[in-house]
């Protein structure tokens, strides 16, 4: 579904990703762990199409297409979703209106019929019920005045509603208490399916106790330095990222 080869990315003139390669198959959950500054968030932003990230080398193929050529909205319509590490507050734009506009824009782009407000609300209620969310947050402006936890829940709610094929969670667990963390994990687990993939970017192992990944990668200094199964995460937690760096040096020698 997603194939990244030898990706080099510069941000403000500084090389952040230095030859990252990664392949995610449909149905899989990949976790990307790594120390601060390793390039984790850069990866998410590049995949979603944020400006200011200059790809100097390498390729990203998603569902047979060159992802890097697409505008952010085209990527969304093609099924790519980024749950933001810092969701943006948009005063004056009602959450429901925003979600309906987004969903219908995606459907229109894909040549599907747009949902009227009744159909849309029905879908919203279904998703709210699955995620145990209150509909109160729908009546407010997008993320405005939301607590950190509410913002992250809103990201997961948007993901549930938009039903992407590739969901990238950029440190969605940061700053969450255990209940919110479980809710995020439940949301992801409920959506796991053979034709959907997840890229879970995280600094800590904690989230991976609830979302058990198929593959765990360690990202350090702009490259994947270690790949393993779910058991890699607790090892990292135990030994710290320095352990990976040492192994890498030992391997190089």
């Amino acid at each position, binding site marked *: 579904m997603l194939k990244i080869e030898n990706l080099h990315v510069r941000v403000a003139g500084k090389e952040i990703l230095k030859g990252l390669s990664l392949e995610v198959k449909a149905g899989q959950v990949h976790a990307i762990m790594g120390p601060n500054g390793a390039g984790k968030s850069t990866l998410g932003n590049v995949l979603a199409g944020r400006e200011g990230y200059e790809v100097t080398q390498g390729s990203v193929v998603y569902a047979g297409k060159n992802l890097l050529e697409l505008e*952010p*909205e085209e990527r*969304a*319509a093609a099924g790519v979703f980024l749950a933001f590490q810092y969701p943006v507050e*948009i005063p004056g734009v009602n959450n429901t209106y925003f979600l309906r506009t*987004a969903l219908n*824009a995606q459907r229109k782009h894909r040549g599907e019929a747009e949902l009227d407000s009744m159909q849309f609300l029905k879908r919203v209620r279904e998703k709210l019920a699955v995620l145990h969310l209150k509909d109160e947050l729908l009546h407010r*402006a997008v993320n405005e005045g939301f607590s950190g936890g509410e913002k992250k829940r809103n990201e997961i709610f948007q993901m549930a509603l938009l039903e992407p094929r590739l969901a990238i969670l950029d440190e969605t667990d940061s700053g969450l208490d255990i209940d919110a963390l479980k809710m995020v994990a439940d949301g992801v687990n409920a959506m796991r399916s053979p034709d959907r993939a997840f890229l879970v970017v995280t600094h800590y192992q904690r989230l991976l106790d609830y979302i058990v990944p198929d593959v765990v990668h360690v990202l350090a200094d702009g490259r994947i330095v270690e790949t393993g199964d779910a058991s890699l995460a607790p090892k990292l937690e135990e030994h710290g990222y320095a352990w990976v760096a040492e192994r890498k040096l030992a391997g190089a020698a």
Partner: protein
Amino acid sequence: MGAALLEEFGRGDARAREESWRYSKMALRALAQQEFVAADANAELPETLRTQFDWPATRRRRVVVVNGAVSERYSDLADVGAMVTVGETGGTYAVRIDGKIDEPMQIVYVSIPSAQPSRWQTNTSMVIVNGFVTLIEQHVSLDGAGVLGASRRRIDIGEGARLDLVSLCDLPESMSLYRLLDVHLAAKATLHATHVLLGGRMQRLDMQVELAGEQARLESRGVFALRGRAHADTQLDVRHVARDTTCDILWRGVADQRARGIFHGAITVAEGADGSDAKLSNKNLLLSALAEIDTQPVLEIYADEVKAAHGATVGQIDERALFYLRSRGIPLADARRMMVTAFCREVLDGITDVDLRNRLAGLLVPHVDGASA
């Protein structure tokens, strides 16, 4: 510069006039160099203009002013009731209101271009002795040879009375308009004014409000949304004269392409006007590198025990928010339109009539087209 026009539209001494027209000097000079004939007060009202203001809710509570003159033919005051009296004295059209009027009244200024550039002027006065009234004011025109209008209005709001004014000025590129709104509020009187300024070759709004009686209150909301070469200049001059008076001013501005917007908000709290509360917030969005917005909040306080807060900003569209919307599948142009409309809509929140509010919001949309950068 256009000395004669400056004389006509300016207020205060020569220096004050020069200063207040600083940002619109060029626009005024260009007007001064043009020849205008007197506009035809008996011009036929085109159907396209009628549809712009013909709201069923105000059909029989409506004054229509054609090219500066009150039109008997198009006005209809059948349903205003005994609490409203109208008349004309010395060239001033006068409206007097004494009592609570549940349905809104409407005053429409229609500018119909002639074959050559034309101009009109009008003076109105309004006295609200007591009670409450909602007045919807509208300026409509057609593109053509160009019209220069000048409207001066004095409003007196009596003790405990309230006026809700909703003023919509949606002008074609060839129309210029000078408006003076001079409001005096007695004790416990309230003015809630919402101004929407769209388009225009040059539109200038001078709004001076005197909070003359204790506990008088002004809530001023406004927005200009400008594209093309539109030019809008708003000058607010609020004076707290009596004790415990309040003003709450919230204005927004958006300029795209080569448009020019000016907001000058002056609040003066006179000596002895203790316990006054003055608030001014002005935020602006520049949507193009060639557009310009100038904002100037001015606060002068000569009293003790005053609460005052003011702030003004000129910024650009939040790129992070734009990316957030796009990352959810909303195309760039729609995302921009969504954000700019939301930015402008805030000033309409105080309008309690939902139909009216939605109608105004709908009018904003074509002026905040997301396509241009």
